[in-house]
């Protein structure tokens, strides 16, 4: 193995270096401090302003009301049902779109003619706001979970295909030549070179899809649903219960963050 240089102890460093490291630590501390400070200040001011009726909590709710709302929902268990429904839809849409989009990209990589034929359609589909297809989707698969999942898939799939295809195509031509000079067939070029070199891009597609699939499922629930976080938000808006809207949004934030965090864990593992 290549010899790693021995790690220096802090005391081995020169004075200037120690000051430099101190400065780095201080800078990091300042960033973290203000990050938390901004959140607390925002929540604090929000609470204060609504408490003293400077702004009307009927329209903007308040942190304490949101927490109370969440506690109420948790007590009767409905928060878990709604969250699980939306989470299920999101994960299903995410998985279907990622797998299908990836496979389509592989097929388009394999066949240059097909790629050229379908290119303009993909571009048009990508720029089309998928919500416009809402009524059509309901007509096709009926109102309900499948419509929501389909919406989610439609939103994620095009971007998956486009990003993966461009990653596949950006593989160094002369690396392909190297494999060809070794007598490799197309399948070997795909599995030994193209797919592994697009791994990084795949992880970032996963990250994008986390965000997009939540957009899809919530949009789907706005369109047609009897339960779920999106349903709660619409319902809360209709009965002017802004606490419910905000509570659902908060839970949504937490779930989306957790999913993103999971993907970044995968990324870290892969990058090692």
């Amino acid at each position: 193995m290549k010899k790693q240089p021995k790690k220096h102890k802090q005391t081995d460093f020169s004075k200037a270096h120690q000051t430099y490291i101190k400065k780095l630590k201080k800078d990091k501390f300042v960033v973290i401090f203000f990050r938390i400070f901004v959140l607390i200040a925002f929540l604090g001011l929000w609470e204060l302003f609504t408490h003293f009726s400077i702004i009307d909590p009927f329209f903007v709710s308040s942190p304490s009301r949101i927490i109370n709302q969440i506690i109420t929902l948790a007590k009767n268990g409905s928060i878990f049902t709604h969250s699980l429904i939306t989470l299920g839809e999101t994960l299903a849409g995410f998985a279907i779109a990622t797998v299908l989009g990836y496979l389509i990209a592989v097929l388009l990589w394999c066949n240059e003619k097909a790629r050229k034929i379908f290119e303009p359609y993909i571009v048009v589909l990508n720029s089309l706001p998928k919500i416009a297809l809402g009524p059509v989707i309901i007509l096709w698969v009926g109102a309900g979970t499948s419509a929501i999942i389909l919406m989610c898939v439609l939103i994620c799939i095009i971007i998956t295909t486009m990003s993966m295809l461009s990653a596949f195509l950006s593989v160094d031509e002369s690396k392909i030549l190297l494999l060809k000079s070794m007598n490799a067939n197309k399948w070997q070029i795909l599995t030994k070179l193209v797919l592994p070199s697009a791994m990084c891009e795949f992880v970032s597609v996963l990250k994008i899809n986390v965000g997009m699939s939540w957009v899809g499922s919530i949009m789907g629930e706005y369109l047609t649903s009897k339960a779920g976080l999106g349903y709660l938000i619409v319902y809360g808006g209709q009965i002017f219960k802004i606490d419910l809207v905000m509570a659902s949004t908060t839970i949504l934030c937490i779930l989306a963050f957790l999913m993103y965090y999971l993907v970044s864990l995968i990324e870290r593992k892969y990058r090692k």
Partner: protein
Amino acid sequence: MTKTNNLLTFENVNYFYQTKTAEIFALNSVNFEIEKQHFVSLVGPSGCGKTTILSLSAGLLKPSTGTILLDGESKIDTKKIGYMFQRDHLFEWRTVWKNITLGLEIQKPKNLDQKLKLAEDLLKKYDLYSFKDTKPRSLSGGMRQRVALIRTLALEPQLLLLDEPFSALDYQTRISVCDDVYQIIKSEQKTALLVTHDISEAISMSDKIIVLTSRPATVKDTIFPNLNGTTPLKKREDSQFAGLFDKIWRELTNEKTTKKA
């Protein structure tokens, strides 16, 4: 017969290729031969078609007219060829060992165990065995190029095609990698065809130098350096070195100016 001693022969090879706007005449009746275990260099003005000659030799392209014989056969068996590129093209996600056995994975030869043993021996012989399980990113530029060479040699090719394999290295590394590669190729008794821009590299490494004209390329001159010294670096100290350099330099500059005028 001398023919049996030639590994690669180009006989009146012409090569055209088409673009949207024109048909390009790339090679004009190219003739040369490479004897077994010789180290031959191709030099010529940039864009003259040196890489085309390598691609033709590797069987990746077919000549428009004329014949190319590899080991006496006009159907080029790609398994007899080892191609090395400008950059090492090691796959970063594979370990050194996995990179070296890439070609074997692809070709799945019958005597796989024997070839794996050879790959292992090559790694040991050229001081890379301890890096077997490391990823290429922790290797130096010179080591990477050595790994790339072993990857090529593991397939036991008869002819090595080297497409400026040193041009991406810094000067010092380049000189020492030249020495390494030269010695490895000579000690494994391989035949090599090197394309290079670097005249001194060509002189110091080759048994024979083929000088090409601008496009459409044809063979302008053939030079046999025959310098004293066991390594390319030592050969640079030979008294004839400067004279040869000057000769090839003139031939190439003439080529450029005549085309401009």
